[in-house]
């Protein structure tokens, strides 16, 4: 069941909210919490019921490991727990990638294994690792089993984040005030959900057809069309992922749960460091808090140059985390290099004009996203060659650009400006007030998206991040 489906928006979500608040109204607080866990498992089962035992097994395993973190050998159990989590992730995600690479060097080829990647595994693995670390630091299991299961399975964030930390949500489990329906949360939640849905079904679906078609026929593209295609993908990726996060945050808010923002207008970034503080913020926080700081703290006399290699290492791993493809590794490595140099430039106080910084940053991101989107690195290199080694006659075509301005070009310019200039969901979340204009906006978004969903019933476009 996708977020952008009628089943989710108009059936699953209302039923979940009604049952949850009804049980709370009857003061059956624990049963209400359990009902949300059950609804979350139903939500997961609609994606992949065969992996439900894996999700449940993972929760039971990690909770039990957390119980051992108050003992003398806590460090051993922590390492063991993290190792098993990563091992399971690697088995499902990288087995065939390893076989493919080993086969390059041996004569007796190994057969590929028929493995399907369990949806959400990458996300609940990271989230549970953070929990184990938190318990290790506190020298005790910091939650009861019901709250822990709720934390891992909570459906708005289960499948593709935002990656939440236990401390983000722990005070919200038993707060009596949050057990009552809050009209303001319902209003803001609906507003954010329908903005997200509008982004997905109107903007992203339009862009994805164009991008998919051009990446499929990449050999026929020229200098100008490769640039338009790559920019379109950057916009598609941003709107797709941020719309997913909007619907997740809005859905949680309808149930009176506040989960962290995942985006803060990344198209406004004026440096690579700035970009990672605005793009997929929950992943950046995970990297920062559970990889970067612990590694750097272990290094004696660390300096900017050691910092460079630590970032390079981490970002390469994060690239690989996205999937078993060299393109993701290249994407991560390039961002590692970008971040490392950004830290060095900062330390030397090298000042660059803000608009120039923005142009460099957005173009860097745009180029790295070509690797992210391409099927393989050969395709990415082919497209990048066209983007940077143009021929003279293409320059002439480029000069005709304005005379050939089409509807799709105007669309791309408009949504770029919207992403750069308009208020983002994270600020709207704190500012939205119930009034006539906002109600009209909700109704407009609800009606247009409903019309679109009905016209494509059963053929909803998947979110990009679901594959990770």
């Amino acid at each position, binding site marked *: 069941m996708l977020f952008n489906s009628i089943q989710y928006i108009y059936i699953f979500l209302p039923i979940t909210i009604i049952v949850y608040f009804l049980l709370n109204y009857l003061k059956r607080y624990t049963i209400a919490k359990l009902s949300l866990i059950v609804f979350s498992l139903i939500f997961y089962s609609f994606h992949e019921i065969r992996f439900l035992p894996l999700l449940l097994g993972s929760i039971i395993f990690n909770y039990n490991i957390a119980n051992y973190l108050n003992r003398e050998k806590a460090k051993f159990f922590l390492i063991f727990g993290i190792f098993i989590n990563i091992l399971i992730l690697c088995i499902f995600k990288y087995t065939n990638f390893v076989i493919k690479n080993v086969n390059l060097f041996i004569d007796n080829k190994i057969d590929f294994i028929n493995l399907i990647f369990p949806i959400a595994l990458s996300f609940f693995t990271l989230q549970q690792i*953070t929990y184990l*670390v*938190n318990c290790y*630091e*506190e020298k005790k299991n910091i939650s009861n089993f019901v709250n822990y299961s709720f934390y891992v399975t909570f459906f708005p964030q289960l499948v593709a984040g935002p990656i939440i*930390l236990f*401390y983000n949500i722990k005070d919200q489990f038993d707060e009596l005030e949050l057990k009552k329906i809050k009209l303001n949360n319902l209003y803001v939640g609906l507003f954010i959900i329908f903005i997200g849905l509008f982004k997905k079904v109107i903007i992203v679906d339009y862009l994805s057809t164009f991008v998919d078609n051009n990446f499929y026929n990449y050999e026929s593209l020229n200098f100008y069309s490769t640039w338009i295609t790559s920019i379109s993908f950057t916009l598609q990726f941003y709107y797709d992922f941020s719309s997913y996060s909007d619907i997740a945050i809005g859905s949680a808010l309808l149930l009176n749960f506040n989960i962290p923002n995942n985006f803060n207008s990344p198209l406004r970034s004026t440096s690579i*460091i700035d970009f990672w503080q605005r793009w997929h913020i929950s992943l950046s*926080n995970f990297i*920062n*808090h*559970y990889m*970067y*700081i*612990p590694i*750097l*703290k272990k290094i004696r006399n*660390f300096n*900017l140059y050691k*910092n460079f290699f630590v970032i390079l290492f981490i970002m390469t791993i994060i690239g690989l985390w996205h999937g078993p493809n060299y393109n993701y590794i290249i994407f991560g490595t390039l961002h590692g290099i970008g971040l490392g140099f950004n*830290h060095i430039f*900062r*330390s030397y106080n090298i000042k660059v004009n803000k608009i120039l910084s923005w142009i460099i940053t957005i173009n860097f991101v745009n180029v790295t996203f070509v690797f992210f989107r391409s099927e393989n690195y050969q395709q990415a290199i082919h497209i990048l060659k066209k983007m940077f080694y143009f021929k003279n006659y293409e320059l002439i075509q480029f000069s005709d650009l304005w005379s050939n301005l089409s509807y799709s070009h105007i669309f791309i310019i408009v949504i770029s400006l919207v992403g750069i200039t308009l208020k983002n969901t994270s600020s709207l979340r704190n500012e939205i007030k119930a009034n006539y204009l906002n109600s009209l906006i909700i109704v407009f978004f609800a009606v247009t998206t409903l019309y679109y969903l009905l016209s494509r019933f059963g053929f909803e476009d998947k979110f990009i991040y679901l594959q990770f």
Partner: protein
Amino acid sequence: MNKIIKIVSQVLNVDQKKINIESNSNQIKNWDSFANVKIIIAMERELKIKIKSKDYPNLNSIKGLIKIFENN
């Protein structure tokens, strides 16, 4: 509070007078993740505290750093 401001000013190489209780990473240049690691190490050494991962979201402001110190 003065000790924390002193640590931050030394790590970021900024005049102490330019830092106050309202200062945060958005206002002070170079207060980024790399600087935060230096702040953690300096605070742990000089204030004899152990900073945990749950404290990390508070690393980006003087108020947050004071909160970390008070919770330890």
